[in-house]
């Protein structure tokens, strides 16, 4: 019988170093998605998605920035705060889109970070539309007042940063990505923030909120939150008891008409989620295109557990063929829960499933409804409208084109469609134009395929002196674009006489008369 040699010290050291580095790597990768604390676009259609603090905030379908729903806080002390998916944080960056119908009669608290019930930082909207940031509550020290003023009936992106510290605290406000108030080395106390509160607190105002994200490590990029719900189909896991009709978790706002409940043992249930690249009834007209940037995703559940359960309930997300289970402690009555925040690719989003997984006995883990919410930055959501053909002029006959010569896919607002990979056919006005695949003009072509919305084009004109234009037309389609005129000059080693064609009279070597 062979015995292994005792491990050498150097080998053991190598393994320990490897494990240490691996552990570090794992800890970094695991924390990569932990920066977003909470996000909501109100797309469940229920105010219960947030936590009501004061008054009676509503869900609006009339004034919406994205999706189908927004939060409406209409009153003098009507606000909601983030569903506490996190315990506390000493750094908070909130991104909220805000719309108000009228300026307040007196300065009004509109956003506040709190530690329990105590204000840590406060943002007020003044009667002239300016903003004032304060340390603590509305009676606190003023950090600054913006020179920028906000107007009624306009969506504004408000970023509100608070760093808790008795010596190096920071409070900063941005409006539409521009800093309007900033204060550093502040004494913002020592109490960690437990929530952010949105809504008018001191006087009556009607304010709408949409696409809110709270982050603990930095400002959040511009984005929109849209939602998709389950669709009918064959899921990977299908063992729960169903109530109603499929899809069982697609009611908005949530109700108990359709649902699915676990059975004893170890079982899981998922449902296919509607594609984000196509519209889904009840979730607005937005879609996510390949050129858009996906910032974050969360699955919000309306669910409960029965009494007498012995075991564990997990929210299950199946993305890219991989299951992720998140343990959740459920109430015995229906309530809203937020799954982990991740950042999948669009391809994986469009094939994902979500549901629950139960392990135990006596279980009645019931999911009433669920919503997959995605915060994304629009890039090329708009359809291809035309091509911009950019050309350098002049060029020289008999010489491969020089300078910047490109075809760019654009939408109707002339935004570049950065996800476009279409193929274009090339045509021209003038004579003797040949297109090539590369800058040495060695291999001719008739087509170019765009990459990230742009293609370089190369061409050579056999004869001068003339004006030409170049047109790109999408292959097997009608979208098109034509360049400005390009002057084609004679090569310096060609005498005008050798280029005279068709009776053209050339004076000064380059001018057609």
């Amino acid at each position, binding site marked *: 019988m062979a015995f292994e040699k005792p491990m050498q010290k150097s080998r053991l050291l190598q393994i320990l170093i490897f494990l240490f580095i691996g552990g570090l790597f794992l800890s970094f990768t695991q924390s990569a998605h932990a920066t977003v604390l909470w996000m909501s676009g109100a797309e469940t259609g229920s105010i219960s998605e947030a936590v009501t603090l004061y008054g009676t905030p509503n869900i609006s379908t009339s004034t919406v920035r994205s999706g189908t729903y927004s939060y409406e806080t209409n009153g003098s002390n009507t606000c909601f705060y983030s569903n506490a998916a996190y315990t506390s944080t000493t750094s908070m960056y909130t991104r909220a889109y805000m719309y108000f119908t009228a300026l307040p009669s007196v300065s009004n608290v509109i956003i506040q970070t709190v530690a329990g019930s105590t204000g840590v930082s406060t943002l007020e909207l003044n009667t002239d539309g300016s903003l004032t940031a304060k340390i603590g509550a509305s009676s606190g020290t003023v950090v600054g007042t913006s020179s920028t003023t906000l107007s009624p009936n306009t969506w504004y992106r408000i970023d509100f940063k608070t760093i808790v510290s008795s010596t190096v605290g920071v409070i900063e406000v941005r409006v539409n990505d521009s800093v309007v108030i900033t204060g550093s080395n502040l004494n913002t106390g020592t109490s960690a923030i437990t929530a952010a509160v949105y809504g008018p607190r001191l006087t009556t105002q009607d304010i709408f909120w949409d696409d809110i994200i709270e982050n603990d490590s930095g400002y959040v990029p511009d984005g929109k939150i849209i939602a998709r719900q389950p669709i009918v189909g064959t899921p990977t896991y299908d063992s729960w008891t169903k109530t109603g009709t499929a899809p069982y978790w697609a009611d908005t706002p949530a109700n108990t008409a359709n649902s699915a409940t676990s059975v004893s043992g170890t079982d899981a249930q998922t449902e296919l989620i509607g*594609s984000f*690249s*196509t*519209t889904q009834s009840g979730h607005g007209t937005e*879609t996510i*295109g*390949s*050129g858009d940037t996906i910032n974050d995703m969360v699955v919000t559940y309306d669910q409960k557990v029965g009494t007498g359960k012995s075991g564990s309930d997990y929210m299950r997300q199946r993305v890219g*063929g991989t299951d992720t289970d998140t343990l959740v402690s459920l109430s015995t009555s229906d309530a809203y829960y937020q799954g982990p925040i991740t950042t999948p*690719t*669009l*391809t994986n989003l469009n*094939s994902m499933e979500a549901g629950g997984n139960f392990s135990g006995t006596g279980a009645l883990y019931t999911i009433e409804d669920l919503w997959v919410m995605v915060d994304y930055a629009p890039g090329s959501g708009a*359809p*291809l*409208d*035309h091509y911009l053909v950019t050309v350098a002029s002049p060029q020289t006959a008999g010489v491969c084109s020089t300078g910047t010569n490109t075809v760019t896919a654009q939408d*109707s607002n002339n935004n570049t469609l950065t*996800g*476009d*990979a*279409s*193929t274009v*056919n090339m*045509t*021209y006005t003038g004579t003797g134009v*040949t*297109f090539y695949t590369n800058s040495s003009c060695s*291999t*001719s*072509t*008739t*087509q170019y*395929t*765009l*990459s*990230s919305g742009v*293609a370089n084009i190369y061409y050579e004109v056999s004869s001068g002196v003339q004006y030409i234009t170049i*047109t790109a*037309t999408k*292959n*097997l*389609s*009608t*979208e098109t674009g034509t360049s400005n005129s390009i002057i084609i000059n004679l090569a310096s080693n060609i005498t005008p006489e050798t280029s005279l064609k068709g009776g053209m009279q050339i004076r000064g070597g380059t001018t057609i008369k």
Partner: protein
Amino acid sequence: MNKPISTTVTIIIIAVVAILAFIFLNKKFVKQNYAVQVNGVGITKSTVNTAIAQQLEFYKSQNQQAPNISTIQESVTNALIDNALVNQYAAKHNITVSNAEVNNRYEEAVGVFNSHNNIKGASDSAFLARINQMYEIDKSEYLASLKMGILKDKVQASVGEPLTKWLQEQKKTADIKIY
């Protein structure tokens, strides 16, 4: 006197001859029917010829003298190789295009066309007439091209780099046979 050939040897000889004949005939069949093979997947000569015909029709519709046929053939062959590589990547990574996505893109394309041509409403008749005039293709062929376009967009997003750059890299290692 020669020994008689055993039955076993006879069977082996017949089998070898049959295999060689199969290989020869199969190669001939492949060459006769396929213009290109990409990683073992054939692109038929008929497909290439159809693409060339569409290109010629396009130049005719634009009142443009077509480039020489070899240039067109090379361009469409390259495009078909690109499509094959995109298809193979998509199949391997479960990237699909749904009918809903295609229909959505179709409605967008019709909308853009109608907008540019001051056509009110969502009728696609003028659009289809124009497509047919430009390429001699019908709606189903147009939808197929849209599907390919969406797939290319998705593959570009999936590979995380410009599609042409990715395709160039793929072509270096792909088994591409042009007959």
